[in-house]
């Protein structure tokens, strides 16, 4: 089960990750980049020194497409990138 917030207009999943240092932020971005290349899914990314905001839109490019199981699964995989 992912820990993202579902928003509408347009339908999307959003989550914010915060880190204590820029190095940790970059490490997470590198892991996210590897996952994105592997899954060929690229969320919108907004980041600063100690935070990363991700926006995951439905994989389907059709207008008003719902979030699919694959979208949810990808969100969970991103959650798993955070080291405990």
């Amino acid at each position: 089960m992912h820990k993202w917030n579902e928003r509408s207009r347009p339908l999307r999943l959003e989550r914010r990750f915060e880190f204590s240092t820029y190095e940790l932020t970059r490490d997470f971005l590198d892991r996210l980049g590897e996952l994105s290349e592997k899954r060929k899914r690229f969320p919108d990314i907004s980041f600063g020194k100690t935070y990363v905001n991700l926006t995951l839109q439905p994989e389907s490019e059709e207008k008003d497409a719902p979030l699919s199981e694959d979208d949810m699964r990808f969100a969970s995989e991103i959650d798993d990138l955070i080291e405990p």
Partner: protein
Amino acid sequence: MTSSIPPRSPKEKTNTKSTDPSKQIIDVASESSVSKKVVSPSKASKSKSGVGGGSKKSVPSSYNYSSSESISGIALGMIETRGMVPAIEAADAMTKAAEVSLVAREFVGGGYVSVLVRGETGAVNASVRAGADACERVGDGLVAAHIIARPDSEVEPVLKVSGAKRRL
């Protein structure tokens, strides 16, 4: 603590946020019919400049949003820095890191500079990360970075370079 600087009279004060078109730096490179071709008198005599302003050379084509033929991929990457030096460092790092096109460099006011790249999503992703690393080590560093994998077509006119030499 009180300031020793006397307050400016209303006539002397420069309102940098004035809506008077004659006092604004207006987009002079836009093809949009909405933009006004009005340039303040103090700027009218100056020629177009490249990076840093003041040069009489025309703006390099790499800084203009040219035709789509030179850009493969529609993903958009943006980095905002505090100062020109980290912006140049970020632009250099972004273009070296991946196959992206540098489409714009904008002075957005207050000493902030934004650099925009476009290309395939994976390339833009790697490029922006590299650019953020680079400008983080220079000067006041990274302010913000943003990647849009699939920008809406309505955003395209906003991405055209304004040609502004600087913004107060």
